[in-house]
Every structure is written in C-alpha cells, then in structure tokens.
C-alpha cells in the first residue's frame, strides 16, 4: 500500500504541476463551456429564436382555470409573462384561453395541431395550496408544448424560467410521482433530439481526448525514456506499480471529467437558448445520472488507455492505437440518432451503451424508466474497467511487452 501511495503521489505531482499537462486536463471542460455556449447562441437561433418569432406575434396560451375567477385576476405566472414580454419584446402580445381540468386531454391535441403554443395545467386547488403558509406539500404545474414549433419551444422555456420567479413550493410536470414529458410533438426532429445527438458526441470526444493526452505518457512514456526499467528493478510488486499509476490517472481524469461536466452543466442555459436556471432544464435526477455515467465512463476510458499504453513501446505508438478508438467512439455517438437504442439489450454493449445512455438521459422525461438501462451501463463500465486493470497488471509481468518489443 505504501508503494502504491508513493507512485500515486509522484504521478499526481507529474500531472498537476506541469502547465502542458494541466492544459490538456482542464481545457476540454473550458472548451465544452465555450463551444456549447456559442453553439447555443447559434444553434438555438435556428430552432427557437426570439429573433425569428414574427413581430406582433400573439403567444397563445391555454390554461386550466381552477385557480382563477376571471381573466383580470390571472395567476402570478402570467402576470410575470406579460411584464416580461411588455419589457423585452414590446410588440408581441399574449392571449389566454381558460379551460377546465376535464378538457386537458382535448387541448393537448390542440397543442399538437398548433392551435395554441403552450398548455398550462395547474393542480386542483392550486391557488389555495401554493400560498398556504407552512405547507410542505408541493403543488404541481404541468406545461405542455410542441417541440417542433419554434414559437412554442421559446414560450415553453420562457414560462419554465418564470416559474421560479413566480412560485416557491412547486413541482413541474410531476404526475403520480413520475415526470411526464412536456413535449407533445410527434415529430422526431426537435431541438432536444438535436442536442441529444450533439452533446454525447462532443462530450465523449472531449473526455477521450483527455485520455489521449495523459495515458500514452504514463507507461509508454516511461518505456521510451527508459525509466520503467529502473522502476521494475525496485523491490516493489509490479501490480503495485500498475495500481499506483491507474489510481492516480483515474483521479486525475476524474478532476478533468468533473471540470468537463461542470462546463457542460453551466453551458446548458445558453445551449437551450434560455435564461432559465439549470435546474429547470435538467432535473437533479438527470444531473446525478449524467455525473455517474461520465465518471464510470472516464474510468473505463483511462483503464483502456493504460492498457494500450502498457502494450505500446512508445508514446507515438500508444497514440496511434488510441486515435482509431476515438473514431470508433465518435461513430458510436452517431448511431443512436439513426437507431432506437432504448432496448435494454443495447446497454450490454460496452462503449456504445455510454452514448445511448447519455442520449436517453437527455431525451427521456420519465427518468425512472431509464434507471435499469443506466444501471446496466454503469455496471458494464465498472466490470470492464476491472478487467482492463487486471490485464494491465498481467502485462507488467510480461517481459516481452515490457522490454523486448
């Protein structure tokens, strides 16, 4: 254990105090933030732009009237919406149509037919419950829109962001403890679908580029410099050497992955083209799922990178093995866009399951339904990482790989 710690600390010093290495580790996170923020600025303008919403447009809102007595006493959410539109868009207007709770299903069809932009369903006795002091029970508001409509998508994100300013003790789109999809669109090509394709592709590319930056150096670099022989001459077990390196690189990659994750999270409001808080775009459950997926995937990438680094005789050779792997990963990031991979069988395919899980977390509103899929993916990541560590340690004992090739 003492030897593992010595090697672990040396590797940390190696990576955390060298500017080139620091750049390789943390730039991807910063790049994710910048690229996604910029992408949000340009891409959302193509999908849900205020700039493309015609001037003098009247937003058509249909809402349940169980909390209001007449149009003049509109709920706070709509007052805030009116104020926002009056201040920022000036020429646009709002039109409210009130319905009873029994008519909700009928008006969902009207949303799909683009007769209205957003349907707002307030929970029964909303007014009494939301302002009741000391009540711990949260009151639900459901928003429905058609994601294929630019105007509707914009109004939906605007209303979502205004919810936090209007109420405190509420939930969104929660029905019987499960989240329900706000997007009623039957068309595939929606903004969220595009993002579910772009985010895994860019995120995985950047995470793997971290692995490409640090792993070849770790073992193949030692071989190339000739320092590995000195290490193998010391009275330590070769498995200790492998574990010391793997644990250090995993921690290093985790910090790098965390920065990438934070970069992704903080760029989401820009990416979704809204001022909404992150919590509205992604629920806490989605965050935890994404974090768990990214961490275990990173460990898998690092152990794979180390195995290749151990096998290769030079940094260049290790790099040449890792680059095609990255290409394979990038291709796999495109597959869920063409094939429906929600069947749990796909979760058993290593690497491909990372992309499909990320895709599901982004697109699926009912997160509980994807827990088994994610559990299989995370388990596969951990099992394969363990297997790769075992193979790396075996390679350390193979003198043909360590010295003679």
């Amino acid at each position, binding site marked *: 254990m003492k030897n593992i710690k010595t090697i672990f600390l040396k590797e940390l010093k190696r990576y955390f105090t060298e500017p080139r290495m620091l750049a390789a580790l943390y730039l991807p996170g910063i790049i994710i933030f910048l690229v996604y923020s910029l992408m949000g600025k340009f891409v959302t303008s193509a999908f849900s732009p205020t700039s493309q919403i015609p001037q003098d447009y009247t937003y058509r809102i249909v809402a349940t009237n169980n909390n209001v007595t007449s149009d003049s006493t509109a709920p706070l959410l709509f007052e805030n919406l009116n104020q926002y539109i009056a201040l920022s868009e000036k020429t646009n207007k709002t039109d409210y149509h009130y319905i009873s709770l029994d008519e909700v299903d009928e008006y969902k069809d009207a949303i799909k037919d683009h007769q209205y932009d957003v349907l707002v369903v307030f929970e029964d006795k909303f007014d009494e419950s939301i302002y009741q002091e000391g009540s711990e029970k949260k009151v639900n508001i459901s928003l429905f829109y058609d994601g294929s409509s630019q105007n509707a998508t914009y109004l939906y994100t605007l209303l979502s962001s205004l919810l936090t300013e209007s109420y405190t003790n509420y939930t969104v789109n929660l029905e019987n403890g499960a989240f329900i999809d706000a997007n009623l669109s039957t068309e595939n090509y929606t903004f969220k679908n595009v993002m579910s394709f772009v985010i895994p592709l860019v995120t995985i590319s950047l995470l793997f580029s971290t692995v490409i930056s640090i792993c070849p150096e770790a073992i193949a670099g030692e071989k190339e410099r000739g320092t590995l022989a000195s290490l193998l001459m010391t*009275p330590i077990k070769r498995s200790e050497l492998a574990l010391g390196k793997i644990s250090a690189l995993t921690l290093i990659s985790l910090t790098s992955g965390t920065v990438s994750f934070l970069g992704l999270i903080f760029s989401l409001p820009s990416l979704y083209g809204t001022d909404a808080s992150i919590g509205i775009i992604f629920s806490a459950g989605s965050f935890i799922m994404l974090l768990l997926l990214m961490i275990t995937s990173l460990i898998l990438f690092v152990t794979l990178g180390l195995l290749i680094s151990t096998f290769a005789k030079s940094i260049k050779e290790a790099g040449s093995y890792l680059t095609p792997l990255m290409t394979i990963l990038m291709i796999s990031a495109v597959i869920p866009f063409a094939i429906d991979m929600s069947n749990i069988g796909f979760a058993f395919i290593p690497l491909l399951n990372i992309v499909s899980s990320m895709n599901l977390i982004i697109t699926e509103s009912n997160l509980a339904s994807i827990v088994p899929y994610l559990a299989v993916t995370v388990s596969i990541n951990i099992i394969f990482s363990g297997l790769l560590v075992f193979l790396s340690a075996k390679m350390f004992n193979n003198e043909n790989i360590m010295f003679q*090739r």
Partner: protein
Amino acid sequence: MNELRVENITKSFKISKKQQKNSKSNVDRIVALQDFSASFKEGEIYGLLGPNGAGKTTALRIIASLIKADSGEIYFNDKNIYDEIYFYRKKVGFLTSELKLDDFFTPDYTFTYMSRLYGLSEEETKANKEKLFNRFGISAFKDVKIHDLSTGMKQKVSLAISLCNNPDVIIFDEPTNGLDIVASKDVEDYLLDLKKENKIIIISTHIFSIIEKLCDRVAIILKGKKVLEGELKEVTKDKSLDNVFFDLYYKEQGHEEY
C-alpha cells in the same frame, strides 16, 4: 561475506514476423545467452567483454532480475534469488550510462522517490543523498529540474539515483558509454572506491582499456557463449587483451588468426 553465483543460465528471445522477414530467416527464436555460469565476489570487479549483440546486456539483466532466464539459476549467498526476490532487489543496483530520468522532476525529488520505493527510511535517504550528491558534485543543482541540467550533470544524477539504495551488488552495463571524458573518469574512480567498500561489481563493456584499468577478472562472450574466463593477468599472460579477444573472435568467425 556476500557472494553471487549464476549457474547455466540460458535465454532466448522470440523473433517477430517482421524481424524474420527483414533477416530473410524462418527461425522464430534467437539464443541470446547460452549456459552462462560465473561467480562474483566482494571487493572484486568482474568484466564481461564482447562485441555488440554478444549477450552481455542480456546476462546483466538476468543477473539483475529484470528479466528471467529460460533455464539456469542465480544464487545470492547460496539462496535462489527468486525465493526472496524483493530482498535481493533491495541489494542490487542496476546501472546503465543511458539517460533514464524523468526530465520534469528535480534530482532531489527523484532520489527521494526512488529511495521510498526501495523502502529506505527518511534518515537513510538523507544520508545516502548527501553522500552521493557531494561525491558527484550534484548538491548545487539538486533543486534544478533535470530538463535544465547539462548532459554531463544528467549522467551523474542518473548514476547517483541508480545507487540510492546503497547496493551490495552493482551491475553496470557499459559504464562509460556516451559519457564525456570527465564523467568517465568520475565513474571509473567511483567504481574503484566501491570496490574498496567490498561491493560485488559486475560491468559489461566492449572497451578493452576499461577492463584493463578496472577489472580483476574478465569473461569474454561471443554469440551468447562464454569462451574465456579468468583473472585478467592469467587471461592476457604475455599478450594484450585485444590480441586475446581478436584471436578468439576470428576463431569463432572461422577466420585465420590475425
């Protein structure tokens, strides 16, 4: 009293398909060392002499336990080294004149790091470091990154770090290869100092003058086989060492005596 003995060690290496194609041969293994036996004593410098590719480095790597022989045994104080391999590795220092340092760290950090891997206490590390750094004139540069040191200083640092565990057995592959004349003199002097400290010293070289200057006993290796071994004076008798070597070399090659 420490004693190291190798008995009938043989080592062959697999030849890759690419190497077979390049050499236009169907042989898939090459014998690098065949039936090599020798014993090494304290306070003596033992030299392995041979041309490049003769098997000297393979022999040293096997003796240092860096690679394993296909057959044969190595005994340190009458115990098979693989019965207590970590104990044996603590006692051995394997050196080469090739640079083997991570440029990013300082000599001070690298020395401490390697000493920790050898299981030395902080006090032992400090004492060994002071002694070796002073001996090789490294002290003034101990906190400079290795990347920023001169080639000569890097070589001295490499040497000092290879000896950080104050080994009883010192195995030195081509001790002066690539060193400048000042560093070469330093290394030669230091090997003679270590001999006085009763260390077991084994060196390999293809330079006759190194053997003549430093070694008490010599073995000549040609094509993986030991063809001659003995006290330097016995081996040379009335001839020079290079004459003895080339007689054997051309005989091995099937040429007339030169």
